[in-house]
């Protein structure tokens, strides 16, 4: 049974390769798409495939959590600008209005020959096309002294939810004049301006409730996104509070002791009252388990987001290596629409248009002080390449910064509607 179907699909795929957009006729039933991961990449892909195929494709979304908390805007929760509930989203609309079969389970394995995904709950899901959007996992040992067992003492808060709430509580519980430390990650990582927006939000909280507290950032990178904007903002809003140590000052030579609550920066040991360790990152581990990674990330074909290792699998978002797009929710959402179109084209013969990619990252420095950086990208044979872009300027007036912040709030409403319906 399975063998016959596989043989048939194999011939279908070979034929499609020669005629390109020729629809693949399925042996039985509707073509099946399984999407693993219900974030900015996966939820968007599931919604667009279900919406635009108008019932011609069975779409299943596998996501362990019933409520998804967006990493974007989770720093604003830390800063007190958003409630946690306002960045949580359920999957009810995707199921009820778009007919997506939402399965709350962990994907634990992929059989690429049989084209099945196995689930922790014991289920096995067949697919014609698989979309993986698993986000990030952490590289073990990247910060000596820290591992996942230490995440309660020194939270990463780089997957939004309970970790973010924990970090906020620890910041609020710091003694008067205490020290908050951040161990910033090496490139590449999710959300390039994220750690520095977080520093800004921590400073905003401390300025209000603990103004003599200090913030220490140990960074292995000599340069980071929006650096001039953040440093200007830190001087303007949080003078004397934030110390940033780049690699020239030992920021790349860090170890931690979560039991003792100490951080060793280039041989100098600091006692810390709260510590945010953001480790080095890699593709969500299902990519590695499925043999789709080169090094830490899953390489993809720029035009379709297909894995370079398996044409029946598309990989989206933070887990990929694709070229110039930063790992961001906006990027994953943009890539998901390209992949959704390619998947529909392959499975139903619908039209496939040239891919278009874009990204914008907004960051909040202090109340009413928003900044942004964005770019447009095009697919070359080799990669997704940046072709144009912009960034907020230092010295902008307060009205423009306020408008930029309000725009980010509007974008949040827009993208979450685009993801979850």
């Amino acid at each position, binding site marked *: 049974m399975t063998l016959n179907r596989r043989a048939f699909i194999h011939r279908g795929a070979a034929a499609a390769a020669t*005629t*390109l*957009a020729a629809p693949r006729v399925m042996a039985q039933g509707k073509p099946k798409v399984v999407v693993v991961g219900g974030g900015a990449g996966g939820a968007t892909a599931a919604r*667009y495939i279900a919406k635009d195929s108008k019932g011609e494709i069975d779409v299943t979304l596998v996501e362990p959590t019933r409520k998804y908390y967006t990493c974007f805007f989770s720093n604003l929760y830390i800063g007190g600008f958003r409630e946690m509930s306002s960045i949580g989203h359920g999957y009810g609309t995707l199921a009820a209005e778009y007919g997506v079969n939402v399965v709350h389970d962990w994907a634990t394995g992929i059989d690429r020959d049989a084209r099945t995904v196995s689930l922790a709950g014991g289920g096995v899901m067949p697919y014609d096309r698989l979309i993986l959007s698993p986000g990030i996992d952490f590289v073990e040992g990247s910060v000596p002294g820290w591992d996942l067992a230490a995440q309660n003492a020194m939270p990463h808060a780089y997957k939004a939810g309970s970790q973010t709430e924990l970090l906020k509580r620890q910041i609020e519980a710091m003694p008067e004049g205490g020290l908050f430390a951040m161990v910033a990650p090496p*490139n*590449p990582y999710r959300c*390039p*301006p994220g750690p520095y927006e977080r520093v800004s939000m921590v400073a905003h909280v401390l300025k209000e409730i603990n103004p003599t507290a200090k913030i220490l950032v140990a960074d292995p*990178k000599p*340069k980071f*996104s*929006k650096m001039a904007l953040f440093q200007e903002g830190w001087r303007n809003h949080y003078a004397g509070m934030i110390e940033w140590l780049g690699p020239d000052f030992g920021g790349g030579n860090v170890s931690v002791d979560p039991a003792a609550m100490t951080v060793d920066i280039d041989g100098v040991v600091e006692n810390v009252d709260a510590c945010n360790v953001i480790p080095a990152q890699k593709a969500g581990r299902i990519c590695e388990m499925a043999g789709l990674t080169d090094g830490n990330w899953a390489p993809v074909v720029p*035009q379709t987001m297909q894995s370079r290792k398996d044409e029946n699998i598309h990989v989206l978002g933070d887990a990929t290596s694709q*070229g*110039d*797009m*930063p790992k961001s929710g906006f990027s994953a*959402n*943009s890539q998901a*629409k390209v992949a959704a179109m390619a998947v529909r084209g392959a499975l139903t*013969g*619908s*039209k*496939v*248009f*040239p891919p*278009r990619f*874009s*990204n914008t*990252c907004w960051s909040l420095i202090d109340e009413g002080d928003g900044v*942004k*950086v*964005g*770019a*447009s*990208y*095009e*697919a*070359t*044979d*080799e*990669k997704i*390449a*940046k*072709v*144009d*872009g*912009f*960034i907020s300027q230092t010295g902008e007036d307060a009205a423009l910064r306020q408008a930029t912040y*309000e*725009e*980010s*709030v*509007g*974008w949040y*409403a*827009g*993208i979450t*509607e*685009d993801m979850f319906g």
Partner: protein
Amino acid sequence: MLGKSTISASLAALLAAGPGAADEIGDADRGAEIFGMCAGCHEVGKGAENGIGPHLNGIFGRRAGRVEGDYYYSDGLERMGADGLVWHLDTLDAYIENPKALVSDTRMSFGGIEDAQERADLLAYLRRYSDDPANIPEADPTARKPELELPPEILAIVGDPAYGEYLSSECTTCHQRDGNAEGIPSITNWPEEDFVVAMHAYKRKLRPHPVMQMMSARLTDDEIAALAAYFAGLD
């Protein structure tokens, strides 16, 4: 109305030729060979240091006359930096075509490279050693903006409502389809003419918003028309 076979043919052409896709800056491997004529004075790559000329790591996006570390520039390069000259693809291209045309009293004793392709290849090579946009999103582009003129087979697709709908998916990341206008204006059910006029004003940079300037810059007139029709006609 296009038949399915026509669409497949145009799609095949599109994927093969890649119209709408970006052009590489040049052939970086060939550029590495061309760099041989610069290497007597300039270092680039891991561990590069200032020598007779400044090192060229991070040259894209660097202000003229402003390398870190000890280096003494000519008065001309100092002045150009003070005036705001920043090294990007276009300014570097002009400089290596004819250094003295851009900076009158530069000390760089180099006659320039006449061949545009050789310059492009050299700059593609040098671009490897500046910031990576995946990590620093504001870093300089790594490819050239595509020409906006689309070949006829793609223009034939453009009038297609499905194409308008696909293009619109890039708008709805921010502009909500249901017309909610919190922080970002609604474009749903906007009169077509107003839509077209506004988008062209962004494209000509008369309207100031940087996101919209960037988005409109890569839309052809026909694509703007398709989007206007799509958003005007939403239920």
